[in-house]
């Protein structure tokens, strides 16, 4: 069982490309920030490395940071083999929100990534079916963005209630 800081040090030690920094937290959990174009390789490494074995992706959440004009994705990983957990974060600019998909590493990411696209408009490169999941296909905008304005009507139906 490793602590998050040990995992960050281990990743840096193994010279895994794209590991940016370890952010300790005063309250709650620390996280490791990663480069968005290397998340897939790092995910594979985290899953297959014999000392880490992160075999499940517990949660994948999209976040909108309006102050920085950025979108972010947080990955919460867990290893049932060793019992350790870690949080990873990537940040992308809002005008080009492209993150590598980890669907091929953890199948559970399929629906989570579709949800992040639907709710926040984050595009996951390499996802087999990047379509909306909760909203209808022809819905406008991404509801969880902080500056989201709900469309007045949807197919002739008033959306306000």
């Amino acid at each position: 069982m490793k602590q998050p800081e040990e995992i960050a040090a281990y990743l840096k030690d193994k010279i895994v490309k794209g590991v940016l920094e370890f952010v300790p937290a005063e309250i709650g959990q620390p996280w490791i920030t990663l480069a968005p174009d290397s998340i897939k390789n790092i995910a594979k490494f985290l899953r297959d490395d014999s000392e880490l074995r992160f075999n499940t992706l517990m949660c994948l959440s999209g976040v909108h940071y309006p102050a920085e004009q950025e979108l972010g994705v947080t990955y919460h990983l867990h290893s049932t083999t060793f019992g350790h957990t870690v949080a990873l974060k990537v940040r992308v600019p809002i005008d080009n929100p492209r993150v590598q998909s980890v669907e091929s590493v953890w199948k559970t990411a399929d629906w989570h990534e579709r949800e992040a696209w639907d709710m926040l408009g984050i595009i996951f490169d390499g996802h087999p079916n990047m379509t909306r999941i909760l909203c209808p296909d022809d819905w406008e905008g991404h509801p969880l963005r902080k500056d989201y304005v709900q469309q007045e009507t949807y197919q002739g139906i008033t959306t306000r209630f």
Partner: protein
Amino acid sequence: MTHQISANVQETREMTINMGPQHPSTHGVLRLEVVLNGEVVSRVHPHIGYLHRCFEKHAEAMDDYSKVIPYTDRIDYVSAMNQEHGYVIAVEKLLQLEVPERVEYVRVILAELQRIASHLLGIGTFGLDLGAFTPFLYCFIEREKILTIFEKISGARLLYNYICVGGLMRDVPDSFKPETADFVKTFRPKIKELNDLLSYNKIFIDRTANIGILPAEVALNYAASGPMLRGSGVSWDLRKNDPYSIYDRFEFDIPVGSGEVGTVGDCWDRYMVRVREMEQSLVIIEQALEQMPDEGNVMEAVPKRIRMKEGEVYVRTETPRGELGYYIISDKSPSPFRVKVRAPSFVNLSILPAISRGALLSDLVAIVGSIDIVLGEVDR
């Protein structure tokens, strides 16, 4: 069991049909786009979102963390206590708040009672899907008793808004302890009755054994949780493996699927894990009732105003359906910056296409029933 069309039948063409959104066996508004080859399922595409209310946006609009609690009730309306419990633990972790002993015990007892109520509904409707009407009524008699207990403490039968940040809305009445103890006593023999009636019924076994087999490594790759994961033989329960609240004080077993009547990870195993979990919940309730302090102010630690510091937590708790995760980011303001719910039903349902390939259409009904989804939680 996968079915092959034998060579001497007429050539068939694939046909796409819709199951749902209004179908008795989809347990709500879920549309399954099923591609059939004869009677054999080639592919399934679940279409969800019919019940989408965007809980996360609502949560961000609240000007107090406590005001989110009624919304959490409505995520999974079948096990609202567990939902509240998970959210409140997450907020308390952000606040670094210690909760009085009595509150912890009441919460655990309620969470376990709710687990039994939820499993009873899951088991009952699963039988109903497969044509067994009577067990459903038997289950509902027992579930009613739990709802009556909940009604006495919170005033509501389904959506309680009872657990609050730092404590409980009000103390439990004096009748709570004896009534719960009484329920534990009377419910035990009913589980045996249910086993005789449904679990070991030959027709039921024929419909569920060897159907929808989910291997353990696939389950882990899909991050399945709860009875779905344990049915595949993986002994994984957050109450034991990553204890929250006071679950580390109780002794109980984690039932796992063993392929007793078929293959490990089939529909029957998932079903049976739920039945055995009800027994374990009774064991926990008994211990909790014994250890629970009689005195104590349940409002003691409730903050007048929630002043949040900057930070974020991901807290996971074991609900009847599996791992419920709350990812909360706070930015010092009174309203949460981001609340993400990792709903177990959402994740468990995403496995459906993988485990229903090659099954018969009628078996698909059994597979959906065995996942025990609540659409409120899938769509949020």
